[in-house]
């Protein structure tokens, strides 16, 4: 195969510009993708990665700029703007971060969905089946064709997404944060597959903000910042520090946890049992003690009981058996309100669904846990001026950007939304903090900020239960780490005794936690 750049590129973006009101989401971006190349698109949230890909895929129409895709004859063809159908026809396939699969249909049905003619009496299932079988054979993306997609693991569902794109003869494949939901082993497997696909001539655009995987996978890296392409380099000629610097325009130092002595038990779980029910992940005999001034990390792939564990500590769930204790005393009865009053701070897993009321303003969201304090009332009515003053101070202290106090919270970026939640929680000086996936989907700048706040709370003597899928995060912050697998919690071992590779295996059920389950 010839080197890229000497042949006409597979995909060529020129001067792509997109404005939303006064915000310039994409500013004259040029981008080329050669056949067989893996290009990483790196950038903070809000840097314009998603907008750019949405334009490419026809969800948005660019204000200026052109897109050309190499046609079947090797000549570049302009891509008509604003049509996902045209993008698909031109061979552009997209794997979204949140899968777009029909969960109660079979793999085969999902793959052929949309490829058939709408007004047709019959389906040629046999031909589709043969084509898909051949595709699975050549790509090595093994999935049972007739299984219901909902019954597949996350890794398998992602393979279905890939197959869906390839089935339509995609020549350009866009992956939006594909490793966000995978274990390290699953990620490694995905990378092997992607490399093989690229060798077969597929052009791949890989969106991420994990620097390490970008460097290991991609041949070329393009960095976006504030809607501009600020860096484009060969992956071999750069390093993490340079990429991080380009992403945030300032050196990012990830805070480290300094060892410190721990205090009395802040949270104790003894033989806690949660029975499986609709929408409730079971927990089996979970024991855990969390001391003041320490961070205990819970590693594991989502769906293994994290949600229930978080629910217990957040006060939205009660155990069926076993008991919880808060700072040596009985667990407060009366749900979230009682817990908040007793000094439990809760950072929910799903910011949009549980963390903020999107249609309420920033100041209202900052008051969501404290609006009913007597100090917040004057003559029986809420003292809104005091709410606003407080919000003003908190926005400054926690660096919440992206709008004034009156801005609806839904307009905030993920990082700023998380800072809002942190501000609300930490301002009450909690002694126990639940942090469920606190940096999921955040860019490195916001991530460092969240880590800094959590470590400050730890230094203050708070006990923190950190539930995360990001092993780097656990290894950076947690004093001890335990693995949750199928509702069973392994022993919480000090960080120094933990190997990353071993942790990955335990998360997949091959280790102490998994052995118990068998």
């Amino acid at each position, binding site marked *: 195969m010839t080197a890229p750049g000497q042949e006409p590129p597979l995909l060529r973006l020129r001067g792509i510009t997109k404005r*939303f*009101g006064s*915000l310039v989401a994409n500013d004259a971006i040029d981008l080329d993708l050669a056949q067989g190349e893996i290009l990483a698109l790196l950038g903070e949230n809000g840097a314009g990665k998603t907008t750019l890909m949405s334009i490419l895929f026809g969800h*948005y*129409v660019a204000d200026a700029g052109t897109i050309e895709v190499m046609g079947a004859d090797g000549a570049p063809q302009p891509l008509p703007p*604003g049509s996902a159908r045209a993008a698909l026809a031109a061979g552009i396939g997209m794997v979204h971060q949140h899968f777009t699969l029909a969960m109660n249909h079979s793999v085969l049905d999902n793959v052929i969905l949309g490829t058939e003619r709408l007004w047709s009496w019959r389906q040629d299932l046999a031909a589709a089946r043969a084509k898909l079988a051949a595709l699975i054979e050549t790509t090595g993306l093994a999935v049972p064709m007739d299984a219901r997609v909902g019954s597949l693991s996350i890794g398998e569902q992602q393979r279905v997404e890939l197959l869906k794109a390839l089935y339509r003869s995609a020549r350009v494949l866009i992956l939006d944060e594909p490793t966000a939901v995978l274990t390290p082993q699953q990620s490694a497997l995905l990378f092997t597959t992607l490399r093989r696909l690229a060798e077969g001539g597929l052009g791949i655009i890989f969106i991420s903000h994990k620097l390490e995987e970008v460097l290991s996978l991609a041949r070329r890296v393009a960095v976006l910042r504030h809607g501009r392409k600020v860096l484009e380099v060969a992956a071999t000629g750069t390093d993490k520090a340079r990429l991080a610097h380009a992403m945030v325009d300032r050196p990012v130092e990830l805070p480290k946890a300094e060892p410190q002595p721990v205090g009395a038990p802040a949270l104790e779980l003894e033989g806690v049992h949660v029975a499986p029910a609709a929408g409730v992940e079971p927990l089996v005999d979970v024991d855990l003690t969390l001391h003041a001034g320490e961070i205990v990390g819970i590693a594991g792939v989502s769906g293994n009981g994290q949600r229930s564990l978080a629910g217990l500590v*957040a*006060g*939205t769930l009660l155990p069926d058996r076993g008991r919880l204790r808060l700072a040596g005393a009985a667990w407060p009865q009366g*749900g*979230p*309100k*009682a*817990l*908040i009053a007793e000094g439990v701070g*809760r950072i*929910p897993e799903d910011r949009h*669904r*549980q*963390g*903020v*009321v*999107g*249609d*309420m303003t920033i100041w*209202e969201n900052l*008051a*969501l*846990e404290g*609006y*009913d304090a007597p100090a917040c*009332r004057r003559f*029986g*009515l*809420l003292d*809104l001026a005091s709410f606003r003053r407080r919000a003003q101070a908190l926005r400054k202290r926690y660096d919440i950007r992206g709008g004034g106090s009156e*801005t*609806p919270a839904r*307009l905030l970026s993920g990082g700023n939304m998380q800072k809002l939640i942190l501000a609300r929680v930490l301002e009450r000086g909690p002694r126990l903090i639940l942090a469920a996936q606190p940096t999921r989907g955040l860019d490195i700048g916001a991530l460092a900020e969240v880590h800094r706040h959590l470590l400050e709370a730890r230094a203050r003597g708070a006990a923190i239960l950190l539930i995360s899928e990001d092993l780097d995060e656990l290894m950076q912050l947690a004093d001890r780490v335990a693995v949750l697998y199928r509702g069973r919690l392994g022993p919480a071992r000090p960080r120094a005794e933990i190997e990353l590779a071993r942790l990955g295996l335990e998360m997949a059920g091959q280790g102490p936690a998994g052995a118990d389950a068998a």
Partner: protein
Amino acid sequence: MRLEPRQQASPWLNVAAPLGAALLALVICALPLALAGADVPEAYRLMLAGSLGTRFAITETLTRAAPLILTGLAAAIAFRARLWNIGAEGQLYLGALAAVAVGTGFVPVPGFLLLPLVVVAGALAGALWMLGPAWLRLRFGVDEVVTTLLSNFIVLLFVGMMLEGPLQDPMSLGWPQSAPMLDEASLPKLVERTRLHFGLVLALAAAILTWLVIQRTRFGFELRAVGANPDAARFAGIAERRVMLKVALFSGAMAGLAGVGEVAGLKGYLTQDLSPGYGYAGIVVATLAQLGPVSVIASAIFIAGVFVGADSMSRAIGVSSYIANLIVATALLTMLLAGLVTRYRISR
């Protein structure tokens, strides 16, 4: 052409959009007016004159607006919390029934206490009637759209039974109507020699009270949070059920008050045709007002004006007054469109 979400709608647009929607509705309805053989500009001029042209017209419009404000508030506060109370019509009749039961001397109380008691009894009757649907929803998850809607028919039949039974006026010669309200139990006139009564003041006060409750009380804060994101509200420890129950009671009370105004201020006695669908129209009022309690006042006056004006116009040039329903319905649709425009930007 495609829609892209706006970062923030300008205040100017928030005012212009509903006005534009009302205007667009009138423009669209020019077509059926013309088809009915009317001179369109003349018809609209007559409508305007009939609703706002004279002192009398204005008082008529306001008289009609009073119950619409209250039923509009009933819908607005409930819908804010995503409690779909479609039963304002029934709650209105129950409010009227309670007002009549207290205000015709059925219950012996001193005169000066009678009017406050009538008002309280009416509000209470409407509120308590919401208990059933609210309980069914909170306890068993029964859809309140169905229960509140169906309970309207129960109330109407019950009112009929009472009007032909214990509450029937002995002097009515067999007509199903109640005894007249005592003078002490009646709302005073606001303007002499017109039908405009003190019920309008009651409605305006209720609108301001509702605004205050929604914007400045703990309950209001909770109801907005529950309505906008029940999951986050629950996570923050807001007792969703208690909030919903209070909303249900508040909503029912507003509708009940509408019934009080109609019997104690306007008609003076209860019949089965007290309300020409004010309860249902309240939903339209609230939707046009985008669920804002103060905007409910404006939207109720607009709708009342359309109805009063269309009545007067149809008398003058013989176009059916059903055109009013058409205009209001069209305004509802254009308003939804306006809501879209304030939230999204239309680009090429």
